[in-house]
């Protein structure tokens, strides 16, 4: 047999559906999006006995076929549309042994679609602890299906599922429930209007909330012989249908399902008492948050340093190995730097999703939602927005990706749009260097002004996020019935395999999705910064060398060389006078001369790159935007840094280092150099309180991060939202910085 069996995996949330999927497919899975929408599509291949293969599609979790979200309608549409290439030959309905009654509701609906269906009862390992016993044979007979009793935790029962899939042709396609009894005359009318269609299928299409399958909907509008019912009448019928199904299920379970309540031990109650407590609940939540921050902020620093070193070395190696030329420079400075900029974020993303998936697997996340919902509601957000907003303080990229848990599209969109306001770790280098430059020494109540300024900047970020959420909540006209029903699942030990898959999947999708765009923009920025059309650019080496011959190095470099040289001399003298080593006078002056040549060459090199940048396309752009940034208190050099740091905020410091021709790794030097910069018009330091505050505020609000834009594009599937974000945040930043500078000036 060469044909693959199409299998759809469907089930309630929290039934371990993903674990079943992982165990069936192993690593042979693929995650993408359904065309045109942001619903995640997971598929994989499963090897069955006797050389047969199955294509397994993991449908979004749903409680029933009555859809209320886009996710759910994807599932329903696939089950209804026989022409879809993924239309299942067989459906596997995953249920959880503790919530079997509720899970069977969905099962009976799928049965009624006349799709061959297998029932998987998962979490069998909990049965004895919960005092549950199930008569599988009788249940199979009553539901007219085949059942696999499975424990994904223990890896039991997976082979039985595979057997059942292989023999899917033997499954019955009889319906479980005849829903026409809820309103016989209505269904009679339906039948006479559409004699060739399946009644239950018609019923599902009529009652769907989410507008889908426009063609079939149109069919109903055109059918004049058929009078539709009002919305509330349909809803009544849906209620009747649900009650009817539960009657059927209750009748069956009475004979087949026994719970010995005395044997059931409730860990849930005692955990809930502590974790949702009005004091301890918050204390524990904030302790967990602190740990996550520490991981993203601090622990990921070590791998990030390694990555940075690795890419710097790789870039150096390419330059030394390949023949010099444009292509080599493109690889070394454009492509490798770009890839390095992507890989750099991997530790942070991996850490965040490690924690998020741990919290979700254990069932704790629902408790956070429960605790925080009331606090977030005034801002148009819900309890589910808390984790993305909090993790935004580390990095907005994983935070935006974490909004996927929010089902309500409006809430999710607002969360995505406001998250970049929170102070991410990339703003920190800028804040630190500017604060050190412009905020005066001194303290109030034992807190230094500098620390207070930093704290204020964090608070401003949060306030901006929350307040703009409030505004967006008012102006965004997105329909979507928002009711809040959150299941509080049982506490479970996380399955390491599931956690590992989640971390791997999220990291991979970031690298492949957003990474492409980041790489492209990095290459463009590199090109603009390292090319120029005027002779000034082409002959930079010569011009600068001649200038230095005539006028000497810039004042700053001269002083710097002097300082370093005298420091070197005194260090040498100290070693000699302390008898650490002895050298003769000639060797001494030789090594001093060598050091001097080295310092001068470095200064020459830096002045050339500075001159080149000034005359590159980027330099022209900097000068072109000077009139725009001048009212904020910046000159064209800061203008260039603002432009290049659009790629990522942390580039700001590096660009200034290049422009001021000092090495960017020497923070003290660049700070001194910035302090020495004089505004030619006012003859005062360029970085003063007014321009410093203006810069701080600009970076607090401006959307200076193309990686975030790329991720927002990926998550919202349109350029509309990232563009709105960019325009709104950056113009807001501009206005605030302008006002601040003009007042403080």
């Amino acid at each position, binding site marked *: 047999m060469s044909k693959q069996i199409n299998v759809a995996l469907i089930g309630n949330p929290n039934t371990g559906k993903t674990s079943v999927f992982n165990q069936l497919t192993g690593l042979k899975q693929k995650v993408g999006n359904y065309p045109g929408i942001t619903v995640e599509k997971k598929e994989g291949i499963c090897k069955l006995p006797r050389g047969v293969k199955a294509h397994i599609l993991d449908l979004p979790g749903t409680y029933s076929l009555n859809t209320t979200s886009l996710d759910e309608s994807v599932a329903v549409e696939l089950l209804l549309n026989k022409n879809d290439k993924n239309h299942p030959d067989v459906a596997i309905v995953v249920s959880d042994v503790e919530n079997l009654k509720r899970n069977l509701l969905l099962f009976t609906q799928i049965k009624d679609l006349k799709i061959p269906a297998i029932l998987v009862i998962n979490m069998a390992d909990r049965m004895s602890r919960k005092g549950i016993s199930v008569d599988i044979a009788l249940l199979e007979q009553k539901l007219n299906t085949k059942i696999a009793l499975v424990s994904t935790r223990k890896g039991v029962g997976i082979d039985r599922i595979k057997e059942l899939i292989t023999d899917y042709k033997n499954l019955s396609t009889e319906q479980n429930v005849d829903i026409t009894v809820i309103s016989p005359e209505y269904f009679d009318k339906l039948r006479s209007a559409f004699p060739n269609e399946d009644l239950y299928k018609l019923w599902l299409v009529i009652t769907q909330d989410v507008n889908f399958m426009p063609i079939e909907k149109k069919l109903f509008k055109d059918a004049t012989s058929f009078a539709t019912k009002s919305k509330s009448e349909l809803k009544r019928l849906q209620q009747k249908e649900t009650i009817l199904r539960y009657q059927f299920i209750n009748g069956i379970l009475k004979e087949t399902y026994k719970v010995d309540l005395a044997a059931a031990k409730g860990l849930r109650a005692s955990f809930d008492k502590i974790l949702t407590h009005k004091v301890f609940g*918050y204390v524990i939540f904030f302790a967990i948050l602190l740990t996550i921050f520490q991981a993203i902020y601090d622990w990921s620093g070590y791998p990030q340093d390694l990555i940075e070193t690795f890419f710097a070395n790789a870039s150096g190696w390419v330059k030394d190995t390949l023949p010099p030329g444009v292509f080599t420079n493109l690889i070394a400075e454009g492509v490798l730097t770009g890839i390095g900029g992507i890989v750099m974020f991997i530790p942070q993303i991996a850490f965040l999703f490690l924690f998020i998936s741990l919290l979700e697997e254990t069932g704790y996340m629902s408790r956070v939602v*429960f605790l925080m919902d009331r606090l977030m509601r005034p801002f148009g957000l819900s309890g589910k927005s808390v984790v993305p907003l909090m993790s935004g303080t580390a990095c907005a990229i994983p935070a935006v990706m974490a909004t996927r848990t929010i089902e309500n599209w409006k809430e999710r969109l607002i969360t995505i749009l406001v998250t970049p306001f929170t102070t991410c770790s990339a703003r920190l280098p800028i804040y630190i260097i500017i604060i050190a430059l412009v905020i005066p020494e001194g303290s109030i109540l034992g807190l230094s002004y500098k620390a207070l300024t930093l704290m204020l900047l964090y608070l401003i970020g949060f306030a901006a996020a929350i307040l703009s959420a409030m505004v967006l909540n008012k102006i965004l006209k997105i329909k979507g019935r928002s009711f809040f029903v959150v299941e*509080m699942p049982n506490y479970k030990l996380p399955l390491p395999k599931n956690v590992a898959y989640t971390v791997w999947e999220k990291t991979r999708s970031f690298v492949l999705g957003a990474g492409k765009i980041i790489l492209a923009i990095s290459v463009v920025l590199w090109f603009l910064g390292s090319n120029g059309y005027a002779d000034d650019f082409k002959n930079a080496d010569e011009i600068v060398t001649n200038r230095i011959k005539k006028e000497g190095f810039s004042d700053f470099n001269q002083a710097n060389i002097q300082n370093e040289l005298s420091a070197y001399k005194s260090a040498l003298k100290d070693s000699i006078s302390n008898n650490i080593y002895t050298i003769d006078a000639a060797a001494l002056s030789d090594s001093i001369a060598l050091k001097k040549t080295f310092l001068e060459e470095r200064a020459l090199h830096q002045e050339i790159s500075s001159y080149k940048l000034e005359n590159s396309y980027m330099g022209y752009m900097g000068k072109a935007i000077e009139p725009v940034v001048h009212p904020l208190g910046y000159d064209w050099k800061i203008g260039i840094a603002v432009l290049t740091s659009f790629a990522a905020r942390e580039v700001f410091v590096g660009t200034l280092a290049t422009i001021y021709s000092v090495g960017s790794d020497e923070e003290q030097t660049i700070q001194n150099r910035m302090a020495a910069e004089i505004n030619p018009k006012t003859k005062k330091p360029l970085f003063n309180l007014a321009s410093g505050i203006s810069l701080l505020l600009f970076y607090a609000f401006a959307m200076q991060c193309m990686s975030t834009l790329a991720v927002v594009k990926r998550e919202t599937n349109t350029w509309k939202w990232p563009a709105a974000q960019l325009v709104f945040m950056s113009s807001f930043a501009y206005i605030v910085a302008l006002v601040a500078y003009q007042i403080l000036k």
Partner: protein
Amino acid sequence: MITTVAQLKKGQKGIIKEFSDDSLPIKLLELGCLPGNEIELIQIAPFKDPIYINVNGSHIAIRRETAQLIELDIIDDTPAL
């Protein structure tokens, strides 16, 4: 006066009455919130909202505004904790 789930005290139970309102989300019904079923209030979040209930074995959190739509008869012998 009509009694609704919103008036339950922690630990109290009640039996859901026939619905009079069809604005109740269908999702709640699917989760087992049906006439005749028992409902128990497990926990109330800080700031009195949302509330955490066990209905028919489903442990779910709903907002107070939704809880006000579900009418019930309180079972008297369950002491308020």
